[in-house]
């Protein structure tokens, strides 16, 4: 009898429960939606509006594509733009090359305890702020710094060379900053690879490079794509590292945006540059996914 009563109550309560569940779902979702709307969608709408107007007289604005035209007409701007894209692709590729052996070691070669220690080691640099880390690189690399000093004392250079303000220096800094974001998705992708597949391929006559190419990389492809997307976007949008390590020579597109907004107080031009950068990263990610035959949904599940 009590059981029946309970069942009856449960039936009666069901519509209520469904409503409650939906309310709870909305509540849980609300912060994310607010954040998305307030901090991403609205500012971008405002920026879009900004980028498409031109000041014709004090406080009088007109709809115009002039900002975008300036970008095309001024070689420095699109030169910086292409250079930033190219350097970001290079940094992403280098990060992948360096992260792959690390991820392989973490996923396949070490035991559980050593693995957590090694993972910690990858994470430790992130306890320190990016600015301090980059300044650390400057201490190491500047003319009166540690590394040039060592080069001289080992007799490899007559005078301490300036190691800062080169493209290579910028790349080193970018790879260093992005490494963890590549190692994590790669490790999880490689961990899910059954060792028996590698053994089977080996047993069927495969050797190291062919197994890597035919078995390991296809299996890890979604993880590779996820890591590359994250690293590429972080690199493209990085401001601190190229500015501090590259100095005046760095010519990074985010610097142009900064200059327009802060130095020249030309918000319209800055907004247009911002949108160009957004379009660039979207296009590059799309091309990358198409080239590697990956779907965005599959990659984001990693």
């Amino acid at each position, binding site marked *: 009898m009590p059981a029946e009563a309970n069942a009856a109550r449960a039936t009666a309560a069901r519509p209520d429960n469904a409503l409650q569940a939906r309310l709870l779902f909305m509540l849980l979702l609300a912060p994310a939606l607010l954040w998305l709307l307030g901090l991403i969608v609205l500012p971008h709408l405002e920026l879009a509006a900004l980028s498409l107007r031109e000041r014709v007289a004090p406080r009088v604005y007109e709809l115009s594509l002039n900002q975008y035209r300036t970008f095309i007409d001024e070689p420095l701007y699109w030169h910086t733009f292409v250079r930033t894209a190219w350097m970001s692709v290079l940094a992403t590729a280098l990060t992948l090359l360096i992260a792959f052996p690390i991820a392989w070691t973490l996923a396949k070669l070490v035991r559980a305890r050593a693995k957590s220690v090694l993972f910690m080691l990858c994470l430790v640099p992130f306890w320190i702020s990016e600015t301090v880390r980059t300044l650390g690189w400057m201490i190491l690399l500047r003319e009166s710094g540690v590394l040039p000093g060592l080069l001289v004392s080992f007799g490899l250079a007559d005078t301490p060379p300036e190691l800062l303000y080169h493209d290579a220096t910028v790349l080193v800094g970018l790879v260093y900053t992005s490494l963890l974001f590549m190692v994590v998705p790669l490790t999880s992708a490689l961990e899910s690879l059954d060792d028996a597949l590698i053994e089977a391929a080996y047993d069927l006559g495969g050797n190291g490079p062919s197994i890597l190419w*035919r078995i390991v990389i296809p299996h890890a492809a979604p993880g590779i794509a996820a890591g590359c997307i994250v690293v590429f976007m972080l690199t493209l949008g990085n401001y601190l590292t190229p500015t501090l390590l590259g100095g005046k020579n760095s010519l990074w597109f985010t610097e142009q945006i900064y200059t327009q907004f802060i130095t020249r107080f030309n918000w319209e031009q800055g907004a247009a540059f911002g949108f160009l950068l957004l379009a660039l990263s979207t296009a590059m990610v799309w091309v990358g996914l198409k080239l590697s035959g990956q779907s965005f949904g599959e990659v984001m599940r990693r």
Partner: protein
Amino acid sequence: MHADLQAARIVKRFGDHLAVDALSFSVARGSFFSILGPSGCGKTTLLRMIAGFIAPDSGDIHIGGQSMAGVAPNRRPVNMVFQHLALFPMMSVGENVGYGLSRRGLPKAEIARRVGEMLERVGLTGAQAKRIDQLSGGQRQRVAIARSLVLEPTLLLLDEPLGALDLKLREHMKIELKQLQAAFGTTFVYITHDQSEALVLSDQVAVMNAGRFEQVGTPQQLYYQPQTPFVAGFVGASNRLGGRATAVQGDAVTLSNEQGLVLHARAVGAISAGDPVQAFVRPEATTLAREASALPANQPIYAGQVQSLLFDGANSALLLKEERSSAKFRIALPQTGQFSDLQVGERVHFGFDPKQAVCFAAPPHAR
């Protein structure tokens, strides 16, 4: 007869654990050789040494007459069907089967032809473009075997490939495996813990325990002439009865124990009167009757009370307690209808031919 696989005193140790203990054996060309043993007996280690994934600490393995010392797995004339098959999910069926051939650098057209022929032979004609996850369990099994056999290995190793299948499919695949092996004539080395697989499939079975082969022989030899107590207990079901040998006459032993059980069995190995012994009586070698007069008169006849009936179709059995000694026996229950009304608590008679029961000197730890 030429041996495709020869092992000479191979040893493998993991720390203090002796996984494979000075094993020597040979497998004849074209035969189906099974290694049967409980989990942890070292059979997987042995198989991985043959495949080349681990090297023996000492001893030598010869495959097709060639020493395999220092030869990597991808250079051995051996292929393996893995426990969970390890098909490549990123490749189609055709690419799976063609992987080994493409590694040998064969031209594309030749690979396509041989893959097509192989798929035809395993009954998967035209399945080249299918994805692995579109196949049923039995089809995957066949792809895994095709992927190995297309390379025409001297030896095919199979690591409990039927373990992951459900019972019905397993029964079906047993027959298929046997037919495939007969059709290809390749030497199969099959490891399993399932005695029915080993008995049904094999020409020769090695029963492995604690890193050693207890006995190597045909399934019939293992079943009818077990050479060690382990084999008698492991292969088939058996009633194990302990006691002392009270009389030994040729190979006929009389076993008695303190509870008053007296039975006659065939001695295997040296037994002298007074020795502690173990006898094994198969449930299916025992005849059951309601009346003592219905049993052969030249055999000892026992009586007992039915304790429980274990109905399992053709494998049905009953458990009973022998009257004088209270020893428990498991006896196969013939499904001829004669005993269909048998009740728990009923008194029945049973007997067995002493030649069908085997008796061993008890192993030291059982004394």
